[in-house]
């Protein structure tokens, strides 16, 4: 059954000309979906549209077969979505643990199990639990940001360029963690610049070009597709 | 309905509404009162035009218009009030001169320390020395001034004026208001917009406190009157002729300002200002000196406020520092500008006309309504009203000004006649 389904989406910033033109996208429960494409193709726009941050001109977005285009961010979190922005994605003045607690704002039950689970995914955070997140390195911040998003027990995790600005070593680690998170039953949809590496771990790949669907297939299929490789994976 | 009333039709309707209002005032209260009100409207228009450039063109929040008005009115009084011979013949005139000479010396020393080449790279030491120099100058000045001020107050009363023509006073008032704006703007314009509001609010209260308490300079609560007029006074040619002359002087000023503003609006300078207001970041990115332009606008607007304020106080013919009220001299002007349509000169003019007439008429109207309440209260509930019922009733106007501000911001944020974006 499809967990998230985008159909005929036209969306953009404010009342300006829409960036996305009739985009379609479907992701099944438990999959990893990767949105790739050249700069300015509308990758982040698609992700933000799903999370209700942009102006949707027309089209439909459903989650568990329910329309979610009119929901506020906190209602989306209640529905089981979680979003990690690309930049400014931690509360810099707050400690690591407080960052995690903020991710669980919608919950009123005991958080200690979930916090331990996040420390399980990201062991370095445990020893930094009382340090302000603003003092951490880029990779550790990304862990805090993902950990925060996981605290609401989402069924769908949206990641906007989780490896931007990280060294290749850290990128590997983050991808590894994303797979681990996915194995625990969380569907992941992410935007990535590192297209080859990302498609390698993807169940589904969506190639966007100038705000439209260019190719949609499994990650492996896209990697082997000559057209895709020629048009933007660089040969 | 809405489409019918767009553009010029709506404007024509509003203008004729203003005309009807003015005609009604003339018919009911006579020409002398009508002319007085029109002259006051004209003076407020000059002030409001100053605000409309600050707020409408550049988005600068001036919460202390009262301070600029009061300062300019004082300067204008100082320049144009007849010479006080008693002061100039007393010893205190030379003593006061010495006090200010010492102040100048102090300022020169401070400036010298600040620009001493050997201290250029030792910022901490320089700061420390500047602070010490400022403190010493201040203390010496205060200690020296106190006995002289007391002497002037007991002898000559106050220093009087320079006996120069009134128009020079108005110009001087405008210039000093501009200098004040330069100081305030210099400190606040690089910071977030709220800080300018806080600083101007504070400076207005300080100027009022100084003018109210420096009796040797302003006679304080004793007030100075009658202020000389730029035209023949009512005593010489009667109220109607005299006020008509005064009105024509102010209308000429408004016409000149209007002409200059309309030109500036479409000139490259005006376009740059509006570009900065509408998108500060991209303007800064395009290499425009955002704060420099803003400072210019802030000074220009304050000069207009000064000229208008000087004209207003001169017309009332009395300089009374306690008479400057934030409600009347700051927030009323805000209502005029935002109701009329910020950034639109015609809108500002119309806003001023409507708001001022309503404001003047609201006093008798409020009292009438509350008289009715008092009457009914007594009849029905045997309610004894408090002694200060009338002064309390007038507080209703304060409430209404506040309500108007919030309602306009919410429901008609661009005012009755919004700024027209003209293509060039």
């Amino acid at each position, binding site marked *: 059954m499809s967990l998230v389904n985008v159909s005929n989406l036209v969306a953009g910033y404010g009342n300006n000309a829409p960036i996305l033109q009739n985009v379609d996208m479907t992701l099944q429960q438990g999959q990893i979906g990767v949105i790739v494409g050249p700069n300015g193709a509308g990758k982040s726009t698609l992700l933000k549209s799903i*999370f209700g*941050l942009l102006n949707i001109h027309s089209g439909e977005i459903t989650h568990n077969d329910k329309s979610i285009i009119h929901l506020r*961010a*906190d209602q989306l*979190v*209640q529905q089981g979505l979680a*979003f990690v*922005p690309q930049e*400014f*994605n*931690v*509360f810099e*003045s*707050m400690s690591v643990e*407080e960052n995690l*607690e*903020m991710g669980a*704002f919608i919950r009123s039950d005991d958080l200690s199990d979930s916090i331990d689970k996040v420390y399980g995914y990201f062991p370095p955070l445990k020893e930094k639990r009382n340090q302000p997140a603003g003092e951490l390195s880029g990779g550790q911040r990304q862990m805090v940001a993902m950990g*925060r998003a996981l605290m609401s027990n989402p069924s769908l995790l949206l990641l906007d360029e989780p490896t931007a600005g990280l060294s290749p070593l850290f990128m590997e680690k983050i991808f590894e963690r994303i797979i681990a998170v996915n194995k625990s039953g969380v569907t992941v949809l992410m935007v990535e610049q590192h297209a080859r590496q990302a498609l390698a771990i993807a169940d589904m790949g969506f190639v966007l070009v100038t705000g439209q669907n260019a190719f949609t297939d499994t990650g492996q299929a896209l990697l082997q597709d000559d057209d895709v490789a020629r048009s933007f994976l660089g040969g | 309905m809405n489409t019918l009333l767009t553009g010029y039709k709506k404007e024509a309707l509003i203008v004729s509404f203003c005309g009807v209002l003015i005609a009604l005032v003339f018919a009911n209260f006579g020409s002398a009162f009508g002319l007085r009100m029109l002259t006051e409207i004209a003076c407020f228009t000059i002030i409001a035009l100053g605000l409309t450039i600050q707020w409408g063109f550049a*988005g600068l*929040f001036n*919460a202390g218009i009262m301070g600029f008005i009061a300062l300019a009115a004082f300067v204008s009084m100082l320049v144009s009030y007849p010479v006080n011979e008693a002061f100039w013949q007393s010893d205190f005139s030379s003593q006061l001169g010495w006090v200010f000479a010492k102040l100048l010396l102090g300022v020169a020393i401070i400036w010298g320390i600040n620009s001493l080449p050997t201290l250029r790279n030792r910022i901490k030491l320089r700061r420390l020395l500047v602070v010490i120099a400022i403190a010493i100058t201040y203390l010496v000045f205060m*200690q020296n001034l*106190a006995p002289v001020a007391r002497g002037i107050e007991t002898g000559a009363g106050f220093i009087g004026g320079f006996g120069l023509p009134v128009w020079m006073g108005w110009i001087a008032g405008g210039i000093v208001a501009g200098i004040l704006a330069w100081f305030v703007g210099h*400190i*606040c314009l690089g*910071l*977030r*917009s*709220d*800080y300018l*509001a*806080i*600083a101007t609010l*504070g400076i207005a*209260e*300080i100027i009022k*406190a*100084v003018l*109210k*308490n420096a009796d040797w300079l302003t006679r304080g609560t004793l007030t100075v009157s009658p202020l000389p007029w730029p035209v023949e006074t009512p005593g010489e040619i009667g109220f109607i002729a005299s006020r008509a002359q005064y009105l024509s002087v102010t209308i000429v000023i408004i016409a000149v300002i209007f002409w200059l503003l309309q030109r500036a609006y479409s000139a490259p300078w005006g376009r740059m200002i509006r570009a900065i207001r509408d998108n500060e970041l991209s303007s800064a990115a395009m290499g425009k000196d955002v704060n420099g332009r803003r400072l210019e606008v802030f000074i220009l607007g304050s000069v207009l406020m000064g000229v208008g304020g000087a004209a207003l106080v001169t017309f009332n013919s009395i300089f009374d520092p306690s008479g400057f009220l934030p409600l009347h001299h700051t*927030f009323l002007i*805000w209502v005029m500008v*935002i109701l009329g349509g910020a950034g639109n000169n015609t809108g500002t003019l119309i806003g001023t006309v409507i708001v001022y007439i309503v404001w003047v008429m609201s006093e008798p109207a409020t009292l009438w309504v509350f008289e009715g309440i008092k009457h009914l209260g007594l009849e029905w509930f045997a309610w004894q009203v408090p002694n*200060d019922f009338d*002064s*309390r009733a007038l*507080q*209703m*106007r*304060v*409430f209404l*000004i*506040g*309500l108007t*501000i*919030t309602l306009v*911001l*919410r429901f008609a*944020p661009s005012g009755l006649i919004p700024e027209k974006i003209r293509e060039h």
Partner: protein
Amino acid sequence: MNEIIFFINKVLISGAAIGSVYAMGAIGVTLIFGILRFAHFAHGDMMTLGAFFAFALTVMFPQAGQAIGLPTGFVMLPVAMLLTAIIAVLLDKTFYLPLRNNNVSPVVMVMASIGVTLMLQGLIRLFGGIEARYFFFAERKDIFRIALPFEDASRKIVITEPQILLFLFTLFSVFAIHYILNKTKFGKAMRAVSDNPDLARVSGINIQKVTIVTWLIAGSLAAAAGTLLSLDVSLKPDLSFNLLLPIFAAAIVGGVGHPYGAIVGGYVVGFAETLSIFNWAIFLRPFRDSLPEWFELSSNLALVPTEYKITVPFFILVVILIWRPTGLFKGKVI
């Protein structure tokens, strides 16, 4: 010795008292600044409003204090705080929320808050009149005179009951604020919104609820500060305007959006005021005879004449804006 006692009375005790009032006001202003991103000009009138609620309750139940042994105005404080807090939330709902939903710039919010100021001012004076009022019309205000164990100390340290209550209450509210911000879910959420509003929104934090909590805290602290100040001095409707500038100065000195900074800022401004209007000639008087001839001792050596007290917070504000616009504790970026 008497000079030192005079100094303690005039500078330390008075400065701590007014500083506590500024601190409580500045916490509210700084929280609103941090979360809603605008300078709330109606804060002074919220203080006056709270004091009027307390006064009205005191008039209605003049006996309530005696039963407990505290001034009636203080006993009524919790009710006044609650009422003011509710009014603050309602003001936000009616006047500020619609503007926020229109995405207006912070300056427009500032202007709206001035509109609210005028409305509150008008209503307070309409119903409360314009003359000063005293809380202690039916009770006695306790004044403690503490003699010091020194032989040459004939003067006594004077402290009033309302001042003691003010100090205790400020201490209590500082701990309460600390607890709320660091230990409770909504308090932490307030810090999160202040830190990064966009991220707070996508984290699922309900901004509207956080806003309500902010107004509840700011409103009740404003009411407490207004009431405790009026208990000590008197209740004047124009209280608000004189408080506004020192409170803003305190909030900016402490670093905008920084509650602990606001507390420090409040005391900085409070002590600066009492130190500047203190007559330093008193300390020189004992040495009158040994001073050189040319040094004529003036009877008043205050740094700032009392009538210009308002220049002190302004001066502090200007200095901090020039040298350290982020405040002592690195507040929100300017």
